[in-house]
């Protein structure tokens, strides 16, 4: 083996500790739950040790569980749509800001709330949306409502909470794609007679389509996989997959079924991630 090749392999060996960690403590566990998802629960022995698709069938045919899947999909879809609509103007603004300092500040501003963590953010929304929260206080004081409105513990509240998590991702994804669209294209559109708003729809939106698809995929995944937001803000009446997985595995100890739900979440996430990455690479620039 030549010296160059030996050197490359020796250097490559530096990856091994990290790789080992990922394989042993992420990939192997995932393979494990895939195995469990095909098993059947037994209250006595925990698992029977068989191979059966029963859990998957149950997840999609049992009315309650199917309902949870559909509710999750619905809430995730609505949250994604809201994020795209709200995120697009902000992303465009950041992308077209000429001052480097302002751009940097806006990006930090966008990302900062994200890094606080879901626990803190959910706590914050509870304070804002609760029956004694900020919104209700405002409504009562201004006379817009006679008594506290139920905002917390509704699907709408969950959407609001999720949007506040997802929006930064949407903004950053969209903004980075918009950065690659030269402003001269917008100027060309305007010189040809398109008003600034029409230019946006005729030029920027089509060219940012890969970014829109990627942002949608990311937002949907994050919403679908959420835990703290549905639990704390949704309360007992809103059922989503994340809390259900926790309940099945940690509380009910129905590991096979919990694993099935986890695998479904994993699969959808995987597919959407592949879709979004492929689209992000198929840009015009």
């Amino acid at each position, binding site marked *: 083996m030549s010296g160059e090749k030996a050197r490359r392999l020796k250097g490559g060996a530096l990856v091994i500790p990290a790789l080992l960690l990922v394989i042993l403590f992420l990939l192997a566990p995932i393979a494990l739950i895939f195995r469990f998802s095909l098993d059947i629960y037994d209250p006595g022995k925990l698992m029977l040790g068989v191979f059966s698709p029963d859990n998957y069938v149950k997840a999609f045919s049992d009315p309650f569980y199917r309902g949870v899947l559909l509710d999750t999909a619905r809430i995730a879809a609505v949250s994604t749509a809201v994020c795209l609509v709200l995120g697009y103007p902000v992303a465009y603004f950041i992308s077209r800001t000429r001052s480097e300092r302002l751009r940097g500040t806006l990006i930090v501003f966008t990302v900062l709330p994200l890094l606080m963590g879901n626990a803190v953010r959910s706590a914050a929304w509870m304070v804002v949306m609760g029956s004694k929260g900020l919104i209700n206080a405002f409504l009562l004081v201004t006379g817009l409502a006679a008594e506290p409105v139920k905002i917390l513990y509704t699907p709408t509240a969950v959407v609001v909470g999720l949007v506040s998590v997802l929006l930064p991702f949407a903004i950053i994804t969209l903004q980075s794609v918009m950065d690659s669209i030269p402003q*001269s294209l917008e*100027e060309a559109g305007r*010189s*040809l*007679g398109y008003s*600034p708003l029409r230019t946006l729809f*005729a030029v920027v939106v089509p060219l940012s389509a890969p970014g829109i698809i990627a942002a949608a995929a990311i937002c949907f995944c994050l919403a679908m996989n959420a835990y703290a937001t549905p639990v704390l803000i949704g309360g007992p009446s809103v059922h989503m997959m994340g809390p259900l997985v926790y309940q099945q595995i940690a509380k009910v100890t129905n590991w096979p079924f919990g694993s099935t739900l986890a695998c479904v979440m994993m699969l959808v996430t995987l597919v959407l991630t592949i879709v979004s990455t492929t689209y992000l690479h198929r840009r015009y620039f």
Partner: protein
Amino acid sequence: MSGVTLKRLNKTFGELPAVDGVSIDIREGELIALLGPSGCGKTTTLRMVAGFVEPSSGSVHFGERDVTRVPVHHRNVGMVFQGYALFPHLSVAKNIEFGLKVRRWDRTRVQKRVDEMLEWVQLGRFSERRPRDLSGGQQQRVAVARAMAIHPDVLLLDEPFSALDAKLRLQMRSEIRELQREAGITSVFVTHDQEEAMAIADRIGVMNHGKLEQLGSAQDLYLRPASRFVAGFIGKCNVLEGRIAGTRQFETKSGQQLQYSNEHAAGSGALCFRPEHGELVRAARADANNISVTLKAVTYLGADTEYELVADNGERLLVMAASSSVAGAAFKAGERLVLSWRSQDSFVVD
């Protein structure tokens, strides 16, 4: 179609005046070049004509119409951008028809116009191609076709040839000039390449530090430059410092008395003449300006021969002569000679 008038255009960004009191009267069908080094304000001026930049003061008129406060998309300008700005997600034909769709032309009329434009720039075969499949020259033609399809009042070009290689540049230069003449459309283009400006523009506006130093034909600029900057920017120039010493009399720093031909107010200035107007001789000529020089170097450039000279007071001078006419002269470096030139060929600038 109409002429374009710029009246005392000013644009200040923060503290700095990017464009300072520019006034130009462009005749209908004329092709004007805005020429100058980077940062001189030529692009900002063009963008004010287009409507992308609002002037701090002054006005822009298309014929009788004051368009100063009119937004870009209502101005009816045809603009060719540096880098062409073709829409990558649209075919050539769709790029060209882009401006027509928003004018709500019916389908047949649009199709007819697009075909006309494709024919005009000779890209009929490429109508369904995407911009990335075209060469630089072809992309530029699409950009021109797209801009012209909308029947604009004025055609604006921002450094249109800078993205092309040297050979293509020459070719596209004359092609665009032809297209512009054929259409008879008033046009303004921005460039930092003086050769380009002189080759195709009817008139050239030389700009420096935001100000319009001089507006005139290539000849005007070359033979009668209005300022030291213009004299030095267009072609090469010999400069002798000194002051006015009487009517058409100039006294150099070293006391030599010279004659010049243009009008100039009293005071200090520089006497200039072009290298090809100077002649190297062994004895001073009557009825001409003469100064003693030492020959530093001779460079044979093929068609021309260049002589580098130093005057007695240290000023460096240049004489350019057709090689065929100096074949027998055989001047050698170090020789003391006389540089002679006519007063008609000298002019004084600030």
